[in-house]
């Protein structure tokens, strides 16, 4: 049946030019070679008289009405590629983007007689993630072999955990952003287990051969299986984002979806509201962004609801669908006929994984503050939920913020600077917070300098950008550029009198009722002071002078 020709990539034949010729299709690893060639042409049924329409093609009121009668049930499997230095069961370097088939050895190539030895770091990361997800840990878990034959799997089986995962029965708390209705949700975690990744297949565009890169074969993964607790695309995307935040906070993975370090497969079914049993489950793959995940799920809910509504519920079948980003819809990848047969059995080459209670306790004690705890703490500090979500979203930003606060800076001001000017700067310059030259200490100084009126807010902004780009100290810049705010009423009054005497025409207009010209005078004085005049004081004295009877 293997009509497709597999050539193993030889490093010296593989050039950058070659890379461009191949599409990487990681999500198709479970389909057979035979099906690969047919997928595009035969799997998608001909458009029937009842088109699978996107929501916009229907009167949205009518659609809303239909959707109101159904409830979606969504569960997610997340694969997290661990940022270890070695593969799970051998010492081959685990490095993304290496030259094809250079990070290989007899163990990960499945050569006879080679024996796997588990990396302690994988256990460490599994325990960390299990604890972070509030799971019960199995002090004694084991590995199993999951058999399937596919060219990206040299051994013919994947080492995984089947009936005793390292962690199970947990939950995760998320905040739904305000723009999506807000609120707090808790989603159950069924299990977390350790396993190894498969290699990568590069399918030639002509479809008549594929190339195999086994650098990824044996790279450690943690698979997180959620309870079917999510009800909408937004909830699912938020769950996914929280997983990403958690693995990044913990430092177990870079959580990068583009590189495939974080992969989410979504299981979704809908049922009429009030019905206890689940509907037919459809799996969606090829989701490489959380926004795509949310849109794919909403599309799928609509598709299934319309089929129900039109009495065609039997057309919802157990299948795997792919999200087509270009067409913004899901398409059939493969239909499932019966249960898969992975023939699991215990891995005889690996001992059980036994965790000492003290070991678990020591990891528990070393866990960093997690996103949920950070959010609740920021909320208690008086920040609004939007600020909270923004700052806690990125662990580096959160750590930066915490450091600014620890230097005594005002909480609300620190949040404002981070969310507005600094965020804009980072975005424009395509930098991360770790790249900026402005230290948390100096941001705290800047906030303090504005608060005690040493400098004005406007001047503060000006030197902020200099500090971000070049570094230095706030006090140094203030001195160097002579930026100290002018708060001496006598000095300000002098400048005001000068401006007024230089603008007799405007003064006349003002006094004959055109009071908007106050802004003109304030601007002139500010200009004269090089932006250093205290604005409140300036306006107060200016008003007095303008309104003074001659």
């Amino acid at each position, binding site marked *: *049946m*293997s009509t497709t020709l*597999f*050539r*193993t990539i*030889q*490093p010296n034949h593989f050039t950058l030019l070659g890379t461009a010729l191949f599409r990487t299709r990681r999500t198709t690893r*479970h*389909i*057979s*070679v*035979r*099906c690969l060639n047919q997928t595009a042409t035969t799997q998608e049924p001909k458009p029937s008289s009842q088109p699978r329409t996107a929501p916009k093609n229907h009167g949205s009121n009518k659609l809303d009405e239909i959707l109101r009668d159904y409830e979606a049930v969504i569960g997610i*499997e997340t694969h997290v590629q661990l940022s270890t*230095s*070695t593969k799970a069961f051998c*010492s*081959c*370097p*685990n490095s993304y983007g290496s030259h094809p*088939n250079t*990070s*290989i*050895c*007899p163990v990960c190539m499945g050569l006879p007689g080679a024996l796997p*030895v*588990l*990396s*302690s*770091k994988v256990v460490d990361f599994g325990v960390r993630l299990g604890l972070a997800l509030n799971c019960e840990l199995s002090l004694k878990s*084991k590995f199993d072999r999951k*058999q*399937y*034959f*596919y060219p990206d799997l040299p051994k*013919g089986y994947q080492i995984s955990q*089947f*009936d005793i995962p390292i962690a199970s029965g947990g939950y995760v708390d998320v905040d739904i952003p305000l723009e999506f209705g807000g609120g707090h949700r808790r989603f159950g975690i069924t299990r977390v287990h350790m396993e190894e990744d498969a290699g990568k297949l590069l399918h030639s565009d002509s479809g008549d051969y594929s190339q195999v890169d086994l650098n990824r074969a044996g790279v450690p993964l943690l*698979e997180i*299986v959620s309870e079917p607790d999510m009800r909408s695309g937004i909830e699912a995307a938020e769950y996914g984002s929280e997983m990403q935040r958690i693995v990044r906070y913990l430092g177990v993975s870079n959580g990068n979806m583009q590189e495939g370090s974080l992969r989410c497969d979504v*299981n979704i079914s809908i049922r009429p509201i009030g019905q206890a049993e689940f509907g037919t489950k459809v799996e969606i793959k090829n989701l490489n962004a959380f926004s795509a995940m949310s849109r794919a799920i909403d599309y799928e809910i609509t598709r299934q609801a319309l089929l129900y509504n039109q009495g065609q519920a039997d057309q919802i079948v*157990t299948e795997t669908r792919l999200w087509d980003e270009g067409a913004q819809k899901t398409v059939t990848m*493969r*239909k*499932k*006929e*019966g*249960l*898969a*047969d992975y*023939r*699991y*059995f*215990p*891995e*005889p*080459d*690996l*001992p059980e*994984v036994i965790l000492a209670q003290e070991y678990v306790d020591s990891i528990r004690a070393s866990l960093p503050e997690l996103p949920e705890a950070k959010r609740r703490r920021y909320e208690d500090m008086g920040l609004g939920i939007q600020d909270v979500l923004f700052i806690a979203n990125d662990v580096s930003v959160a750590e930066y913020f915490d450091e600014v606060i620890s230097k005594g800076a005002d909480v609300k001001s620190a949040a404002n600077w981070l969310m507005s000017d600094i965020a804009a700067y980072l975005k424009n310059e395509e930098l991360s917070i770790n790249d900026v030259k402005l230290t948390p200490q100096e941001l705290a100084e800047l906030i303090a300098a504005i608060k005690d009126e040493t400098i004005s807010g406007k001047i503060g902004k000006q030197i902020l950008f200099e500090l971000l780009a070049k570094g230095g100290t706030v006090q140094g810049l203030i001195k160097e550029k002579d930026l100290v705010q002018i708060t001496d009423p006598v000095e300000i009054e002098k400048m005001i009198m000068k401006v007024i005497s230089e603008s007799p025409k405007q003064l006349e207009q003002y006094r004959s009722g055109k009071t908007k010209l106050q802004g003109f005078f304030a601007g002139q004085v500010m200009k004269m002071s090089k932006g250093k005049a205290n604005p409140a004081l300036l306006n107060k004295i200016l008003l007095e002078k303008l309104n003074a009877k001659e």
Partner: protein
Amino acid sequence: MATRAALLAVLSASPPPRMIRVKASTFSSSSLQFQRHSRIARCFSSDTNPSLLQPPDVSRLAETARISLSPSEIEGCGAKIRQVIDWFGQLQQVDVNSVEPAIRAEMEGGNLREDAPETFDNRESIRASIPSFDELLRILWLKRFNSVLVLLPSSCLVSRFNTSVKA
């Protein structure tokens, strides 16, 4: 005993003589697998009853090994596989009720590795030994068929059998 149990799991996983036309794409998400858990666990712990040994469904085995066989090949294979199964049937006569199952090599746990990368020196010879397409087909055929049948490495087979037979 463990070997036998493992084999049982394999054999009983192939349903009673019923040809299943499975498209090559019948893999499901892992959550589906858990429904099967109780069944497999039962296989592992069950008293090994020779009557559980069913005649091989060669088509089904070939399907799971991702190889295609002609009807005459199926016939030829069937007889050979039957022999292996019968041999296991004989082994199952041994009373092992008082013997602890030896699922894996005895290693008081803790056999872990530091996360220190080491590049394997002889990678070139691994790549060089990758067979050509024609060779590959032949090797895959053998390798897959063997591993579908006997899911344990041969080294393990020996040690497990020693345990069982001693009892």
